[in-house]
Structure formats: structure tokens, C-alpha cells
């Protein structure tokens, strides 16, 4: 399969269609899930899809070192190319990985203003025309309303899409809410919200669309394949 076919047949096209064209430039998408359900894999698959389309991606993490995230990109790309028999996989890999940067902030210093300053430096001084910025494991719990507003302004100014992920550790074991508590105060700034949830009945991890801009969310029939760690059709 050649790259163009791969993009066309990607299950991410279903996500785009279900969200009326995706998150969109200047907008914010959030992926919420409990720890260990596959948030990073889902985001990395979304990012790889953009990279395959020739777009530029910055992946922000809050860890001691960025190696773990880089490994995710390698694994997800290897899975996609193996599964779809991508022609010239090595060459495609080298081409697309040039357009990805992982920016790592030590948790203590990863304040929104610090992250935004780093992102601006990378995009403007570093001449990196980012189309998508992923902020993995953002601390929505401590974030203020204005913080998300700042991110939105930044996305508008730089003409890019923003995806966040949030860990629902503090949600407890009570019945899952469509909108996690931690996101309630930020909901107005969020354009697309997807919950990643494990369904006991079929044992699969489902992508549940909770907010789709101003539209009524529909069932996307997408799951995260726990074997390949790729988004796939139900």
C-alpha cells in the first residue's frame, strides 16, 4: 500500500467525519481516560496520521526524559506499516519523523506559561511550522480557566490544532460521567472531547465522542486495539 492509500483508508477519517472535519485550526480537543488505557498510543496514532499527510507535529510531555514518547512513535509507525504493508516504509519513516519534535518539561516546571514559551521558541525561533500540538497528560486539575484560554489564543495565533490528554486518576470508581469532573470548568474552551473507556461487556477500549463542537455527538464505532495499540473500527 502506498502512503496516499494509507491516509485515505485510515480509521482516523472516521474520527474526522464524526467530528465534522476534526478539531480544526485554533481549536482544542481533549482525550480523557483512566491511567493505562492507551491515551498516549491514541494521540501518537493521531499524530502519525498527520505526519503521513506531510504535517508538522510537536508532542509535549511531562516526564524526566522524552525517550519513552519517541519509542511510542517508533512502535506505532512500525505497527501501521506492518499492518498495511506500507511501500518504502524506511524512507517514509525518515521523511515524516523529521517533522516531529518531542518537547519534554520536567513536571515541576511544566506550567502553562512555561510550556507556551517553549512552544513559541520552537515554532518561531526554531522555524518549525507546527500544524498540531499534543500536550500529553496535561494537569487540568490544577489548571485555571485562563490557562486554557491562553492555549486557545496561542493555537489561533499560530494557526494550529491542539490536542490534550488528561488522566482521570482523581475521578474515583463511581459510575463514569460523560464529562469528567476535572474538565467541567474547562468545557467551554474544549471543542472536541473524547473519552477512552473500557467496556466490560465486550472487553474493548472504546473511543466515545462526548463533545463535537456545537453538534450532537454520534457513536464513532472506533476502538483502541489493545494488541496493536492502534485506533481501529469496531
Amino acid at each position: 500500500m502506498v502512503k496516499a492509500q494509507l491516509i485515505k483508508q485510515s480509521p482516523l477519517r472516521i474520527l474526522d467525519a464524526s467530528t465534522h472535519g476534526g478539531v480544526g485550526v485554533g481549536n482544542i480537543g481533549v482525550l480523557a481516560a483512566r491511567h493505562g488505557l492507551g491515551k498516549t498510543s491514541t494521540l501518537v496514532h493521531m499524530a502519525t496520521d498527520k505526519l503521513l499527510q506531510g504535517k508538522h507535529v510537536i508532542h509535549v510531555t511531562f516526564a524526566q526524559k522524552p525517550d519513552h514518547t519517541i519509542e511510542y512513535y517508533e512502535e506505532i509507525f512500525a505497527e501501521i506499516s506492518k499492518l498495511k504493508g506500507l511501500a518504502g516504509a524506511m524512507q517514509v519513516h525518515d521523511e515524516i519523523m523529521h517533522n516531529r519534535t518531542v518537547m519534554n518539561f520536567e513536571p515541576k516546571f511544566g506550567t502553562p506559561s512555561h510550556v507556551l514559551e517553549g512552544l513559541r521558541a520552537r515554532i518561531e525561533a526554531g522555524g518549525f511550522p507546527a500544524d498540531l500540538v499534543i500536550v500529553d497528560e496535561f494537569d487540568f486539575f490544577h489548571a485555571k480557566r485562563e490557562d486554557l484560554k491562553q492555549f486557545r489564543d496561542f493555537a489561533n495565533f499560530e494557526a494550529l490544532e491542539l490536542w490534550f490528554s488528561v488522566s482521570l486518576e482523581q475521578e474515583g470508581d463511581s459510575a463514569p460521567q460523560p464529562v469528567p469532573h476535572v474538565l467541567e470548568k474547562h468545557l467551554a474552551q474544549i471543542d472536541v472531547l473524547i473519552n477512552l473507556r473500557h467496556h466490560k461487556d465486550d472487553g474493548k477500549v472504546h473511543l466515545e465522542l462526548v463533545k463535537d463542537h456545537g453538534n450532537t455527538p454520534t457513536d464513532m464505532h472506533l476502538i483502541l486495539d489493545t494488541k496493536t495499540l492502534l485506533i481501529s473500527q469496531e
Partner: protein
Amino acid sequence: MKVPVEKMRNIGISAHIDSGKTTLTERILFYCGRIHAIHEVKGKDGVGATMDSMELERERGITIQSAATSVQWNDKFINIIDTPGHVDFTIEVERSLRVLDGAILVLCSVAGVQSQSITVDRQMKRYDVPRLAFINKCDRTGANPFRVREQLKEKLGHNAVFVTLPIGLEDKFNGVIDLVNSQAVYFEGEDGTDIKRLPIPAEYQAQYEEYRTIMLDELSNFNDDLMELHMEGKEVPVNLIKAAIRKGTISRELTAVFTGSAYKNKGVQVLLDGVNDYLPAPTEKANWALDQSKNEERVQLECADDKPTVALAFKLDDGQYGQLTYVRVYQGEVKKGQELRNMRTQKRFKIGRLIKMHSNHMEDIDYAGAGDIAALFGIECASGDTFCDDKLDLTMTSMFVPAAVISLSIEPVDKKSGDNMAKALNRFTKEDPTFRTFVDPESNQTIIQGMGELHLEVYVERMKREYKAEVKTGMPQVAYREAISEKAEFTYVHKKQTGGSGQYAKIGGYFEPTTENDYEFVNMVKGGAIPNEFIPSCDKGFKEAVKKGTLIGFPVVGVRAVVNDGASHAVDSSDMAFSTAALMAFRETYQKAKPIILEPIMKVAVEGPTEFQGNIFGSINQRRGVIVSSTEDGQFCSVIAEVPLSEMFGYSTVLRSMSQGKAEFTMEFEKYVKVPESVSIQLKKDYEEKRKAQNK
């Protein structure tokens, strides 16, 4: 004096540049009584630190070449190899680590784990070297050894456990809390020689208890008796704690972390106690050799004096009395008057003079036992050679030697300099396997090759200072490669009739790209179309052809040459005819195989204060660099990028000026990749012009 092997320690001191390792070494020498006054690296007294024995090192304030020295601390005899910190001199670090049984990893308590610390640590892992960590510069503004210990855990994956804690930090740093002996240790007197061990001050009691508990929790994994006592809340004896730390350190499952300030003379003696107590004796580390008589079968060596000798020459030094060869004795003993065999040259030699080195002073000895490090005088050999007893046919495993990535043409300014330059080059190539030299047959220029701009720069300086060889240097040249990108078939007939017997050879087959080897020859000739005796001639011809591609005159790599057909003539076919046919077949087919140009890509790590982050990103972007990742920890940012070597010339100057001298970078070879089309066109144009100029 015969040193019992269990009382020997062979240690290295490795760190990021400017972490203070030379200062630490200087203090160790002083406290062990080897020197009688302390000189600073960039000191005002102009003497310089003792371990930086080369003039150039003193001037730059960095340690370029390892210097070996032997000291005694209490009842242990310690051989110290001071290792260089810059990646350009990595071969020196690798060579040192090879012969060591343990090491001290020096870290700056302000800058923490830096890119070079990661490289050095990876090298230590490669050679299974157990290490202690010394968090230095606790007296500096911004010192935070607790953060550095976290980085040791997170960035280097060490099970790092404090064994001493600082008493105060920055300008209030005035001693350490010894968690093993439960004492506060102060280093008084002008040079910190007056050690006072006192009860722990009340204000540090809680911190002491917290970190002692963490230490004992970790040590419980290494000693069941200790675990039991600790679980029951009973007092754990010091000897049990020391035994557990030693076990954890030697198995490389634990890194004991010491704190201090070498510059302020604090914490060094406690670290030396740690070297004695926790780092292994030569007998506690397995060493292997290759048996040449049994197809390089691995043989474990025995660290015992009564066994046949096996020793490794790990460093050469050219002093005023001739060549000095540093050896590590792995098995048996090395004695004055003894005869040994150099396994590479198979030549036997007699040991005339045997010495122990203290930086640039020496001491004559008669004997060096198994596990020891000593130096031999007047032995003709190269670095990495194995010396063996006649009964054995062993060589030590070959060292990892990376390929050279940069070259520079050099030209002596006069005849005298020319003679001296030849002597210098002969010496340097023996000392450093990553430094190579040859004469370019086309330009007739002497070319030197190495691992980076600074690497070559230092050798040019050394030629001038040590050998009085003044040379003019050309522009640094990148070691490009050429490669084929497509399969291409060939049939070539080489026919020549000049009276008498002629030349005839016909070969057919194809070339295809391969990523497995630089060059591969496959014989698929069936039915004797090419007689067997001429098959190696085809191989020889192709090998000659790939030495120099026709795009820009650099070697062609990644070629599989397959021969599957041909013809010969009973009289006119010869070795020469077939090798010429192969050479010409390659040249004729090369363009059909869509050749491309490859350039070396360096993995560059830039570190600097966060305020210069934008400048760093920009500078890499301007150099066709790809930023792989960046990490920010508040004060500092570190950027990992892949940048073509050709774009890195002069980067240190640029970086210094854009960051007020506060940012630094290291780089190492990563891979070869295809150059962009625009660069390819320019390179081809330059090559054409050069050729035209040469033909005029």
C-alpha cells in the same frame, strides 16, 4: 613492594566537561600524599592541576589525555586514570574504562546530569564498570544534589542512594552527614585535612533519619540479615551496611551517592573511603580474552600472579625518554627482564624498565602483579596490543573504534617542520586509533582524519607545541560516501590485443543496494563460465572500483556485486584481465544504478540556560538540523538534534556568542543519510571544478 591483589583498586574518574573531575583528582592526590600542594585547573599560580600534564590541557582547562597515577589511601592501593570529558576524545574514555574495575561519576550539583554524563554512563555500562557518584560543587549557587540524585535515577536509570548528605548548601555548605557511620563530618584546616567526626546536628536529625531509612530500605535487597534487623527496627551494624553497599555496587544494581565540593576541600576523604570499601578489587571482575588458536573462543582470565601473563597496552605516551606504554596486567605478572610476545606483530620483546606513574613523575619498580597497572619503557607497539606469555595465544577483545567523520589537509611550512610532522603523525596514530592519516594520491597532500573539529584541532596544536611542527591546514572536509540506489545489470567484455598474448575477460551480473555491508561479493556463476581461479579477480576489481565513486570521488558503500555469467579464453584470460573487466563493469554501470551521495549526520546535544532556548532552536534549524527532542527543567534546557556534520563547522563559536558563553554542545556520529538534491548538485559541481583545476 608486592601489593596484595585484594588491596588494589583500578578506578577512573569520568564526567561531563567542567564538572570538576580534574580538581577532584588533584584533591585525591593531595590527600593521598602524592603531591604536597594543591593547584587549581585554571589557577592563578599558573601551575595548573597535576593530572593535566600536557601544556595544552593546562591552557584550555580541560583534560585531553588520560594520565595514570597510583596512590595509597589507608590500606588500599589505587590506580587512577583521569579521563577526558569531551566527546571528541571519546576513544580515550573508552580505552580507560576498558581497563578499569570501577569508576567515580562526577556530577555538578548545579547542572546535574548533562548530555556528556549520559554518554560516559553508556560507555561505563558497555564495559560493566561499577560506579560511585560524587555530586560535586555543593558550594555553588543553585546547588541541588537532591535534584541531581533524582536525575541519576530518571535519566540514567541508576538505583542511586545517598550515602552522604550535604550539611548546608551553596555558601552555607560546610560538611557532610555520613549516613553509614551516622556522623557529621567536617573538613577543617586550610586544605580540609583536619577531619572532625561529630554527632549529627539536631536540625539535620530528621533529614538524616529519612535518608538513612531510604538507604537501609534499598540495602535490604542485598543482605537478608540487614533486612531482618531493619524490619525489626534494630540497630544495623556498620559492617553489614558496608557489605550490602559493596555487593550492590559490584553487581551494578546500586549507585552509592556521595556529596561534596572538591574545590572547597569537603567530602573527598569520605569518597576515598567509599572507593576502598565499595569498589571491586581486580579479582572481583571477570575479564575475557580471545583464544587465537581456537577460532577466537572466549577464555576467562584468572587474576593470579602464578598464571601465564596476559597484559593489554591501553595507552601510549611519547616522553623525553622514548615511548611509554601503559599496561593493565590481566593475568600473571610483568617483571623487569621478562620476555613477552606482542600478539599483533608476533614479535618478542624484553622488558627493560618498568615504572609506576604519578602524573608526570615516575617511580621505578621491578614487578607488577595480576590486576595492576604499570608502564613500560621503550616497547615498540600500538595502543590496544596484547602482550602474552609464549605459552598462550590470547588477545584481549578488540576495542570499539568508530569510523572517522572529518578530514583536514595539512602542509608543513618548511622542511624541518615536515620531518617533525611525520614523527608526530606516527606517534599520534599509534596513540589514538580514531586518528588516521594518509597521503592523498591525487593532490599529494597529507590528510588527517578524526572524530570532530576539536579532535583534529588539538592534534594540530600538539604538533606545533610538542614536535615544533608548524603546519598550514586546509578547510575541514566531511567524509562523504556514495551509494547506489537501484539494481543495475551489467555485461562487460575486456578485450585487448597488443601482439603476443592479449587480454580477454567477460563478466555479467548485477549490482544492487544493500544495508548489511559496505561491500559484498556474491559468486553465482554456474557451469564454469568464469574459471574458479578468476572469481577472486572479479572481487578484487570491484573492491578497487568502490574505493572511489565517480560522483564526487568518495568511497561507494552499500554495494552487493553479483557475478552470474562470463566467458574466458584459454590463453588471453588472466587475473589482471578479470579484475580490469570488473573495475570497468562497475564504472560503466554506476550511473544506471542511480548513485546518490551520503553525508555523516551527527547526534548533537546542546545544553544551556532556558533563556537561550529560542537561539539554540534557531541555530540548529539554520544548519539543516532536525530537532528530535528537547527537555526543560526550569533553569536548563537540553536539545537533542541530528545535524549534518558539514553544517557544524564553527558551531562552538556561534553557540558561545549567542549564549554569552553559557551554552555548550557535544556531538557524536549517528548515521549516514542521503544529502538533499541542492547539496548534491553543489558537491558534484565542486568536484568537477576541482578535477578541472587538477587537470590543468
